[in-house]
C-alpha cells in the first residue's frame, strides 16, 4: 500500500513539485499499479522471467556511433553539442 507520504518522498527525490490534487491522483495510480501485482502473485511459483537463457554476449568490436545532430535531434534544449538540463547542484 502506497501512502501519500511515499509519493511525497519520491516527488522530492525527483525534485518535482506536485499539487494537492496530483498527490491524490498519483497515490491512487500507484496503488492501482500495485494491485496488478496482486494478480501476478496468483500465478504458480516459478513462472517468472525464466527463459533458460544465459551468457548472451557480443564481441568487443566498434560500431559507428550516431552523428551528434541525430543524437541531439530530440533534445528539448542543447548548447554546443551538449544536452542542456536544469540546475542539479
Amino acid at each position, binding site marked *: 500500500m502506497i501512502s501519500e507520504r511515499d509519493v511525497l*518522498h519520491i516527488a*522530492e*527525490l*525527483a*525534485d518535482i513539485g506536485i499539487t494537492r490534487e496530483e498527490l491524490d491522483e498519483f497515490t491512487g495510480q500507484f496503488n492501482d499499479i500495485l494491485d496488478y501485482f496482486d494478480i501476478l502473485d496468483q500465478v504458480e511459483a516459478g513462472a517468472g*522471467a525464466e*527463459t533458460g*537463457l*544465459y*551468457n*548472451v*554476449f*557480443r*564481441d*568487443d*568490436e*566498434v*560500431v559507428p*556511433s*550516431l552523428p*551528434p545532430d541525430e*543524437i*541531439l535531434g530530440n533534445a528539448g534544449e542543447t*548548447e*554546443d*553539442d*551538449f*544536452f*542542456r*538540463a*536544469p*540546475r*542539479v*547542484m
Partner: protein
Amino acid sequence: MSSVSGSPAFQAVEGDEEVIIGLEVHCQLDTKTKLFCGCSTDYRDDGPNTHVCPICLGLPGSLPAVNRKAVEFALKVAKALNCRVLEESEFSRKNYFYPDLNKGFQISQYDKPLAVEGWLRIEGDDGEKTVRITRVHMEEDPGRLVHKGGADRPKYTLVDYNRAGIPLIEMVTEPDIRSPKEARRFLNKLRATLEYLGVFDSEKEGSLRVDANISIQPRGWFEAHGKGMEGRGRTEVKNISSYKGVEKALTFEITRQKNLIRRGQRLETATRHFVETRGVTTASRSKEMEQDYRYFPEPDLVPLRVSDWCERIVLPELPDARQNRFMDEYGCSYNHARTLTGDLRVAEFYEKVAAVDPRIAATWVADTLLGELNYRDMNIAKVSPSHFIELLQMLKEDVITDKSAVEVLRVILDQLAEGCQCEAPSSCVARLNLAKTADDGLDAVIEEVMREHPQAVEDFHNGRKEALNFLVGQVMRKTRGRVDPGDVNRRLREILPPGGT
C-alpha cells in the same frame, strides 16, 4: 561469548581511537567498446555526444548486449583479487533521478554480483596486511555533467553521454584499512594489479574514482562489535578521482570528525562530497536510501554463468611475484624491488635497462630517475630506455661521476618536458664537457687550488681536518663535479705536506 555494549568484554580507553576505512573503487575497463553497445570508448579527444547511440542513450526500444571482453576482464580482476566467482550473476537496474543517467536508471549488479570474498595483500602501517574484498561487480559509467553559470550556484547543467556506458568494475573492501596512508597504498597496489592484468589504463583521465567510508571508533570497538559505536556514524566521501585525493580527503575527514567528537557531538551517517581543488569535504544533498534505488533484475539482459571461465584464465606475473623475482634474479633490495614493481611501466623500463648492471640500474631507476620524474610530474614512458642504458654504461665504465650523471639526466628530462627531441647522453656529456677529468688533469687543478688557498694548506698542516674538506670542495667546484670526491680526497692527502697532529 558475544559482546554486548557495556559488557566487560570491551573496555574503551578515552582518547585512544582508531580510524576505520573501507573503500569502493571504480575503474574503467580498457575495452574497445562500451559495456552494452558498440560505441567506441576512445572518446577523450572528441567533442561531446560523438560516441553515442540509441542503446547508450537509453532510447525506447533499444536493447543492450553484454560485451564479452568486459566480462573476461572483470573475471581476470576477480581471480587476481582471490575472489569466489558466483555460479550465476546478473545485472540489475539501479533507479535514481539525475541527468547523468539518460535512462533514469543505471545498469549495475546488486544481489548477484560477479564475485565475492577476495583479498589483496598490502604494506600496512604495521607491516604486511590483508585487506578483504567484499565484492567485485560490473556496471556502466554514467554521463558527464558540466555545471554552468557560477561555481557556487550553477544556473544549468550540460550533459555529455560519451562516457555513458563505459564498462566499470567496482571493487568494495571490508572496513580493514586503518589510515589514509594505508588507503593510498591499497589503491596503488590495486592499480598496479589491474595494470599488470592489462585491463586498466591509469593514465586515462577519470579512469579511476573512489568513494571512501570512514569513521573514528574507540580502539578495539569495531573488532569487538563488528560495527561502529552509536553516535559515531560513518561518512561516505564521494567524488574522489585521484590517488593523492584519497589521502587528502581522508585526512581532512579525520580532522573534521575528531573536532566534532571533541565537542561532544554525535556523528550521524552521512554522505559528503570531496572538493579536490580546496582539499575539503562538503555536506551533500543525498537523501537516497538503498530502498529508494528500487533495484530489480534487468529484464533486457539474461544472467551470466561464467564461473567456469576462471579455470581457463592464466594470470600474468602480478606485482608481488615480480617483486620476488627482482630480488632473486637481479639482486634488488626489498625496497628497490617494491618501488620498481609498484608500477607496470617502471618495472618494464627497469627490465629493459637492467642488463648493464642490475644493481646500478636499480639505484638509478628507483631512486634517481623516479625522483626526477616526480619532480617534473613526468611519466617514465617518455624516457628512452636506450638513452638510459647509455647513461648507466658511462657510470659503470667510470666515464662520468654520479654528480655528472644526475646533471645529464636533468638536462635530458628538461628537454623532454619541453617537448623537444632530447640529445643522447654521450653527446650531452661531450657538449657540457662532463667527462671525468683524468688524473693528471686532477693534479693540475689540485695544485692550482693549493696555490690559491695557502691558508687552508697551512691549516691542514696544523692538523685542522676541516681544511681538507674545504680544499676538496674547491677542487669539486673548479671541475664542476667531473671528479669523484673520494678520488680528490685521496689525492689531496698524498700531495699535501703531512699534517702535524
